[in-house]
């Protein structure tokens, strides 16, 4: 596994952990699942910490004979960014559509406040990062 692939895995793990942590902090779980919520927070924090340690460790343990990034890595990164861009463009267009529908047609969208709009955009941003890294991992496994 190349360094860039390891970075893709650690970034994917930390993005999932951030998304889960954000969801738990902002929305939480139903009251009957309160015990699970604490355990889940702890697991997500450990995943984030593990990803961070691996990433820092890989950065420190540099092999000066080994190339950090080559043309294959750049090609795969490009595919990841392209898919993330498509996801982000569709998601932002959808959000804008909801806001416009609300203002013009008084249609009741699920974005009912500025806060919900911010939540949606934050989640979209983290999801686009997950799309990027998942695409990269797919192509690292494929080619």
């Amino acid at each position, binding site marked *: *596994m*190349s*360094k*860039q*692939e390891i970075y893709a895995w650690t970034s994917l793990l930390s993005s999932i952990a951030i998304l889960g942590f954000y969801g738990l902090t902002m929305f939480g779980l139903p009251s009957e699942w309160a015990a699970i919520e604490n355990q889940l927070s702890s697991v997500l924090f450990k995943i984030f910490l593990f990803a961070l340690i691996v990433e820092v460790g890989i950065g420190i343990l540099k092999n000066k*004979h*080994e*190339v950090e*990034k*080559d*043309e*294959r*890595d750049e*090609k795969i990164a490009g595919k990841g960014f392209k898919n993330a861009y498509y996801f982000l463009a569709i998601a932002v267009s959808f959000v804008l559509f909801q806001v416009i529908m609300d203002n013009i047609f008084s249609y009741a969208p699920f974005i009912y406040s500025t806060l919900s709009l911010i939540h949606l955009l934050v989640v979209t941003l983290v999801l686009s990062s997950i799309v990027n890294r998942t695409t990269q991992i797919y192509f690292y496994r*494929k*080619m």
Partner: protein
Amino acid sequence: MKDKKVANNIRTLRFQNGEMTQAELAEKVGVTRQTINALEAAKYSPSLELAFKIAHVFGVGLEEVFQYQD
């Protein structure tokens, strides 16, 4: 990046050149060992520059290393 379109003799040429390892070849042409592995498995087609670099390392022409398959 079409699969199996560009075949190659990298593995054979490595062994004919003093059993060169993938890591050694990777270092000589400035890529990762994983890229050489992907090239040998015909999972990845290299850029023209990388193809020339590999041919240069083995001291042969480009078509002795890579073959385009219709």
